[in-house]
């Protein structure tokens, strides 16, 4: 028997749950299922964000990654003519000569101090306004503007890499949408089971003058709480995995990775710092909103069969 002092509290708790949803929509299975889906969603979300960052970085790099070589011994007048012709092209933001000292420094690891003695080609660095839609066509135009030149068309590969990163991003978002649809379906099934278990109680509430909104709200509040809790657990469980992946992927984004070595705590911190926190923090709230909405729709559709 409950203690007398606790009776009002127990009464209020039961009174707030006239459909007994705490029992029929228990706080174990649904949150666990949603937690597993939230973990997948967090991975997909972080993957999509990472792919977007990679694509942006590669795209940016590609715009300044075109070099053009003139044969060794090209006279200064020929170099100037080539620079002028290149600067006139609309795609070219900047064209500048790589001076001989810097070229020698770049080749030093391979040629050593002998570099200045070796006949070196004239190298022109070209910055483009953006990643060309058709890198092969641009290369041909650059070669035409500077006869005898050879274009190092990194852009072709970078464009393909950017396309790959964009595809990965799209796959990430598609996975996210699929997980969201699955979560909504799981909530709908749980709510339908709850409706089936509490059909008589719903009929009593309906008879007493409860609106569809009243009844749907009771299910939605319970489903929203359980899915929000599940999404929070799943997102929290994903954090260490995401931090490790972020640390491993750091070199691709211009950072440094300790791989499997180094100070574990420091690497974890660095990985955590690189995560898309705004999106991850929003995930539990979005999970709760998804559960609430799915329950509202499911219950309201079912209630339409009542007069």
């Amino acid at each position, binding site marked *: 028997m409950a203690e007398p002092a606790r*009776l009002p509290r127990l009464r209020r708790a039961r*009174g707030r749950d*006239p459909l*007994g949803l705490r029992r029929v929509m228990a706080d174990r299975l649904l949150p666990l299922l949603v937690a597993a889906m939230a973990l997948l969603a967090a991975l997909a979300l972080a993957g999509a964000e990472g792919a977007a960052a990679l694509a942006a970085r590669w795209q940016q790099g590609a715009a300044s990654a075109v070099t053009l070589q003139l044969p060794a011994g090209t006279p200064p007048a020929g170099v100037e003519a080539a620079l002028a012709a290149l600067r006139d092209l609309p795609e070219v933001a900047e064209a500048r000569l790589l001076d001989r000292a810097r070229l020698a420094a770049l080749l030093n690891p391979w040629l050593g101090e002998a570099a200045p003695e070796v006949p070196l080609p004239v190298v022109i660095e070209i910055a483009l306004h953006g990643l060309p839609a058709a890198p092969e066509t641009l290369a041909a135009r650059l070669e035409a503007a500077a006869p005898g030149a050879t274009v190092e068309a990194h852009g072709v590969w970078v464009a393909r890499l950017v396309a790959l990163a964009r595809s990965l991003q799209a796959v990430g978002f598609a996975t996210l949408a699929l997980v969201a649809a699955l979560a909504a379906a799981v909530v709908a099934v749980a709510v339908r089971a709850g409706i089936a278990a509490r059909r*008589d109680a719903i*009929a009593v509430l309906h008879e*007493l*003058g409860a*609106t569809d909104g009243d009844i749907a709200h009771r299910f939605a509040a319970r489903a929203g709480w359980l899915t929000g809790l599940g999404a929070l657990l799943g997102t929290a469980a994903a954090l260490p995995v995401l931090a490790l992946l972020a640390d491993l992927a750091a070199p691709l984004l211009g950072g440094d990775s300790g791989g499997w070595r180094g100070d574990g705590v420091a690497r974890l911190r660095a990985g955590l710092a690189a995560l898309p926190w705004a999106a991850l923090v929003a995930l539990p709230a979005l999970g709760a909103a998804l559960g609430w909405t799915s329950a509202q729709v499911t219950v309201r559709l079912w209630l339409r069969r009542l007069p």
Partner: protein
Amino acid sequence: MVRFSGVGLRYPAPGGDGAVREALRGIGFTLPEGSFHWLLGPSGAGKTSLLRLMQLALRPTEGEIELFGKRVGRLRRAALPRLRRRIGVVHQDFRLLAHLSAFDNVALPLRIAGRTEAALRADVAEILRWVGLADRSEALPAGLSGGEQQRVAIARAVIIRPALLVADEPTGNLDAEQAARVIALLREMHRLGSTVVVASHAMKLVEAYPAPALRLDSGRLVAHG
């Protein structure tokens, strides 16, 4: 107050062969405000169907029902809950929520109407006292006798001071003493101003409490008065 005009009710017969069962046909009557009526007839005559139409748990397939001056057929579905809150219903099988105490079952209509906890406590306690269950307020339905459960159901039906109170065989599962007590409570609600309709085939009880009657047979109203 309550007016039925040419009301009929058909629904698909069990079996799914497309056959239609006619539960009620051409029902017409008017119940004045504050009246008490028995609803009589043999089993299967359509008493429950008629009460379910009256409590807005069903919609007629033909004819017109008017409640509290409103033609129900012309109302949007979203407008019906407000009308239902003016109707109290008592069932033969009580229909209490098994996981709620007597107090919470009785408080349910007030909570649905948006009454705060502080405001509803005194009313629920008073109505439980009125039905003689003040000391059983924390008991679950499974711990109450049939008569006590029916009195909780009546308390739940009348706590909103309903303009219309319908009871479907409210004494069907009770002994004579409990039945008399339940009927006395329903007549008390009539005395307080509610329009009361009680379906019964317990003729001894009906004879003990004389009142106008609606008599149904095979889905038709055969006598009124």
